[in-house]
Every structure is written in C-alpha cells, then in structure tokens.
C-alpha cells in the first residue's frame, strides 16, 4: 500500500471514507479549532470505493458515540488505533440502528425540524443505506442527506 500521509506515533487512522466526507468528520469531531494534529487525504485512489478520503489524527481516540457518528459519514470505513507506531486495534465501522439528533430531516414539512431528530437505518432493494425518520416516516438515501447538526 502506498503511504499517503506520514505515520502516526499515537492516535487514530480512519481509512476508506467515501470521498468528500472527511471534512464532515473533522467538523463533527470539532477538530478545526482544536490543538490536535490532523492529516487529511482527499480523493485518494481506492479499489473498493474508486476514490476515498483518509484521516489521521494524532493523540486522539474515539468514544462509542463518536464511532457511531463517524459511521454515518463513513459506513464500512476502517478505524485503526495506533500506539507507538503500531496498530493495536482495527475495526470496520458499522452504522448504528438508530441515529439521534445528527441528521436534519430533508422533508421540509417534518416536525423534527424544530426538535431533536431521530432516524433508523435500513437498506433498500439495491443494498444502499437509507435512513427513515422516526417522525415523518419518510426514507432517504444516506448519500442524499446534505444537512447535519454538526
């Protein structure tokens, strides 16, 4: 594998992020104004995705909530935890069954626009990931979600 960004001593590596979504993750984790060092790879070649993004964040670890949130922007991404330049844990992120207060419902008439949103995740006939609003019961392709509470 080609090395795109310098190796980490300690921190996390998030690989196989669908291209265009790395910046959402940085925003969701509030990293823009933090003191954490972040390496960003955009539009990198990928056998699995065609193009992908990649993030390396030094001296930073994710809790379970963070992992669930990131999985929304990077379903099936690979998360590696690195200590002393070695990968000590590696996992494939998966979408939670329920997503709370993160996705803004695209339905302009939905009551959740004024309140906390709640979605369940499902897949459609083409195995594409969809989210279904708990309130208005409408289903949306995850790729078509453009607004987030981040």
């Amino acid at each position, binding site marked *: 594998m080609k090395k795109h960004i310098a190796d980490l001593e300690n921190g996390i590596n998030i690989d196989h992020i669908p291209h265009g979504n790395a910046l959402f993750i940085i925003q969701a984790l509030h990293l823009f104004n933090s003191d954490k060092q972040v390496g960003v790879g955009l539009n990198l070649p990928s056998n699995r995705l065609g193009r992908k993004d990649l993030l390396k964040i030094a001296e930073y670890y994710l809790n379970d909530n963070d992992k669930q949130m990131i999985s929304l922007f990077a379903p099936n991404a690979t998360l590696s935890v690195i200590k002393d330049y070695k990968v000590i844990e590696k996992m494939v992120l998966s979408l939670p069954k329920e997503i709370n207060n993160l996705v803004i419902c695209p*339905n*302009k*008439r*939905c*009551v*959740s626009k*004024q*309140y906390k949103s709640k979605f369940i995740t499902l897949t*459609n*006939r083409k195995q594409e990931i*969809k989210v279904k*609003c*708990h*309130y*208005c*019961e*409408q*289903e949306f392709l995850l790729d078509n979600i453009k607004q987030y509470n981040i």
Partner: protein
Amino acid sequence: MHNLISISDLSKNEILNILNLANEFKQGRVSDILSKRIIASCFFEASTRTRLSFDSAIQRLGGKVIGFADSNATSLANKGESLSDTLKIIGAYADAMIIRHPQDGAARLAHDVCNIPIINAGDGANQHPTQTLLDLFAIMYTQGRMEEINLGIMGDLKHGRTVRSLIDAAKLFNMNLFLIAPKELRMDHDQLFSLKQASISYSFHNNAEEIIDKLDCLYLTRVQRERFIDNENINFDSYCINSGTLDKAKPNLKILHPLPRREELPEVIDDTPFAHYFQQAADGLYVRMALLEILFT
C-alpha cells in the same frame, strides 16, 4: 393497542377487530366506556368530518371533549410556545388526545412527549390511519370480504396521506392494486418495491376506463395542491371520472373518496348505485367509536 399513530402500527387482526366492532356499533351496540373520561380533541389544521365524527363518537361513548378546532386561539400561535410544550400540557389535562397537525410526524411527537394514548387524525402528508380504517370498513361492508379485492386508486398517489395509509393496509389483505395516476404523482420506487416484497399485484394505468370492468372498489383522491412544495404543474383533467367512465363497471363496484371532493368526482355520480362515499364518511363514526372502545378496554 394503546395508540394509533400509523396504520403500520396495527396488525391484520387488530384491524379486523376494529372493523368488526365498528359493524356492531353500526348495528346498534351501546357502550359507555368513556364515562368519566376526558378526551382532548386538538385540531391544529382544518377538519370537518374527522373532528366532528370523533367528537360525536366520544360523546356517544359517554366521554367529554376538550380542545380546539382553530390553533390560532392557542398559546402556540399567539405566545410562541413550542408544539412540544403545548402537547405536554394538554396531555396532563386529558385521558387521551386526538391530534391533527399540518406537519408530518406531529402525532409521533405527541406520543413521545405525552403519557396518554394518542390518536393520529392526520399529520401533514404522512398518515391518516383512522381514515384508512373507515376506508377498509367501506370495502368490507360493501364487498363482504377483505382479501383479494381489486382496488383501483386514482389521483394523487404521491402526496395523499390517505393513499399512503391505504396502500400500507392493502398489503395486509393481499389486495390487487390498479394505480391510476400521472407519472409525476406516482409513488416512488421504494414504495413500489415494498409492494413487490409483500407479493402484492399492482399495475399502472392512465385512465379508469381501461380497467373499470375489473374493479371491486375505485378509490378517488383530491389533488393535494396545498402540499405541493415545488410548483408542480400537472394536468389532472384525465384523472376525473364521469358517468361514462362507469359504463362497463361490475354491479358490485363502489366508488370511495376520503372527501372533500373537487372536480375529480362530479355530483352526477352521486345518484348512481356506485356512489358510496357519503355512507363511507358517515360510517366513520362507528369506526371511531370502535377504535376508542378498544383503546380504553
């Protein structure tokens, strides 16, 4: 059953229990199950049949009604109170709440913030489950059965909440669907896929005449122009019926409509033996009595 938010909350047996009990009320059953109960009737959006039939049902079952038919008179409209706070407070004053609201999902919000049974009387373009129950009652009452009905649904299949709920219910009863709508107002691919998954037979048609001889019931809907978000300019003229449309109809055909009607269902149809929509609306009283009795049993 403690709430009715969406028709998909009900099993086939629960639906049949409600319909059978509604038939008993139509035959003269008497009940005072709501005596000493107060039901909040909260109509944030205009309604005639649904609100009055619920009010009548509650009073015939011995209950009392509080609420409003015009949300402009509430603190929500005048003092900027949130809908969530308004619903919480109403929930503390009543034993159950019937809610109609123009926003999709408002009834589910009421369910989430209140500790009393909630009945959805229509939430935006989403669901209108009690309308579906009375649509199903009309089918059962006029056809004597529910299974394998040839059901035509004509008009706005995209925005109509009654259509969405009826199609969900049709899946439970293995109905054959004949969908008559312009391309722009058909259901989306995933909804159609859900019909396939449920092994429901469906076909699309451009007018009712080509399939009228196959239908047991023809369900007409009003164009929901008030719910169009993106100025959809659609010619709807071919999706109205007239007496000629019914020339080849089977004798058992009944025309159903959630009302109010407009140009899609002219008054000339009222005097034909096929018209059932006024009886359908009148029987909504019995369906709502049955629902309330089951909710409090």
